[in-house]
């Protein structure tokens, strides 16, 4: 306690300056001392009205009755242990806090105690306000959560309800195509093709909606088994080659390092490749180039899907992974056939594998979508 040395000699000034009320009483509960704050807060303005008076005459009767402070002081004298504080509500909504400490004098024992008293009305009011705000916030959060759950539930129900009619439509398309309902003319076959591709599109939208609601309610389950990333990439590229071919785009696959098997959900990882590559094809102009690069790293596999398409503005680089985001600009200029779920789903799947996904892009020069999958 070296620091205390530097204030020796200033005790009086310091005690007088303390913004709490301080009163010292003896065993007969007579006041020996009251600090400046006491005089500032009470009607007694002069020491001679206070010193030597019984405590019950210098502090309000009400306070004594409510707190039984006199009994507590006697207790401190008796036990020598401090009374560590209590709160008191005063008429008019005032709150006080007080403590009683014994003052030991050599071997004589305790002949004086000091009482600290603090007006904590403002503090209590703030505390109550804070508690009120907290309760309001909690209620609002619960309400929001309930709304969000209702919305997810609705999306889930709606998607399920759409699946049966889609199955019926899809079955008849297949029956037509298989010739089970008689031979088709070329024109009929061509139109059935259109119905098929539109139905498939609708099925994909419904699946995306379902996956989104699963991701939101954390019900998207990952079934891990050993997978070969390169093989999955090749499969998806093959499936999308027709789409890229329509735009005369060059799609290539390169690898770096010895690729080891990793643990992952094949169907879901395929979905990630599919969503990222479909986007790349969509946003790369005719005759553009798309490259898939798979890199082996010590702890993870890194996949980079680059295109030389329109690119993404810096301010949108994080937003594109949010659901329902379909590019900046007004909602009227959005492209049809998209709900802005593909990247949100890809992010959800990658994160469910404890990997990360992000984009590096420059407007007009193209984008590189990168995702990593940990090896263990």
């Amino acid at each position, binding site marked *: 306690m070296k620091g205390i040395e530097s204030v020796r000699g200033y005790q009086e000034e310091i005690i007088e300056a303390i913004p709490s009320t301080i009163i010292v009483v003896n065993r007969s509960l007579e006041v020996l001392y009251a600090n400046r704050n006491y005089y500032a807060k009470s009607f007694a303005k002069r020491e001679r009205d206070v010193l030597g008076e019984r405590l019950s005459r210098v502090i309000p009767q009400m306070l004594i009755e409510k707190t039984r402070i006199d009994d507590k002081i006697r207790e401190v004298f008796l036990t020598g242990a401090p009374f560590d504080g209590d709160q008191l509500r005063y008429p008019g909504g005032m709150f006080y806090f007080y403590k009683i400490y014994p003052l030991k004098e050599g071997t004589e024992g305790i002949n004086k105690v000091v009482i600290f008293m603090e007006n904590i009305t403002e503090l209590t009011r703030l505390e109550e306000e804070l508690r009120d705000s907290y309760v309001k916030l909690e209620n609002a959060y619960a309400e929001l959560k309930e709304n969000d759950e209702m919305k997810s539930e609705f999306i889930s129900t709606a*998607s*399920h*309800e759409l*699946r*049966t*009619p*889609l*199955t*019926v439509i*899809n*079955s*008849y398309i*297949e*029956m037509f195509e*298989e010739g*089970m*309902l008689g031979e088709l003319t070329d024109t009929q076959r061509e139109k059935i093709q259109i119905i098929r591709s539109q139905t498939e599109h609708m*099925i994909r939208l419904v699946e995306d909606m*379902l996956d989104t609601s*699963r991701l939101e309610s954390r*019900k*998207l*389950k990952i079934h891990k088994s050993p997978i070969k990333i390169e093989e999955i990439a090749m499969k998806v590229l093959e499936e999308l080659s027709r789409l890229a071919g329509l735009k005369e785009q060059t799609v290539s696959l390169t690898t770096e390092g010895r690729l080891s098997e990793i643990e992952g959900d094949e169907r879901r990882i395929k979905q990630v490749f599919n969503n990222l590559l479909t986007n790349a094809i969509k946003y790369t102009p005719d005759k553009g180039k798309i490259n898939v690069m798979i890199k082996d790293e010590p702890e993870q596999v890194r996949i980079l899907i680059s295109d030389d398409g329109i690119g993404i503005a810096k301010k949108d680089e994080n937003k594109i992974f949010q659901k329902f985001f379909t590019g900046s600009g007004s909602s009227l200029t959005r492209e049809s056939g998209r709900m802005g779920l593909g990247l949100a789903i890809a992010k959800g799947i990658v994160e469910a594998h404890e990997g990360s996904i992000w984009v590096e892009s420059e407007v007009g020069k193209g984008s590189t979508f990168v995702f990593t999958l940990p090896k263990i």
Partner: protein
Amino acid sequence: MRLLVVDDAPQMLKAFRDILEVHGCEVYEAANGEEALIKYSEVKPDIVLMDILMPRLDGISATKKILQDDPCAKIIVISAVGKSGLENECLVAGAKGFIEKPFKIKDLLNSINSLVKG
């Protein structure tokens, strides 16, 4: 081959009938789980195609009840509900297969054929 198809969507039942009759199956229909129990004991089909979400009695309960009476019953659950864990629940209930809607006709026929052979 005698098939009992159970689904509460009439158009789905019609589609099943159209798909399966072309492939030489005799098709019987039930619109919910309760009807399925009655039809099953009447018809004694080789295979049952069972929806899950249906009024009165759901597909999983119906599957369990059919299997209580006939432990050899071959039931394939065909569901629009994509809840994870559901497939397992159906297999635990005793179903021999699980197909999600929308399915490819080829996949449906493959499941039926492999079950008949197996």
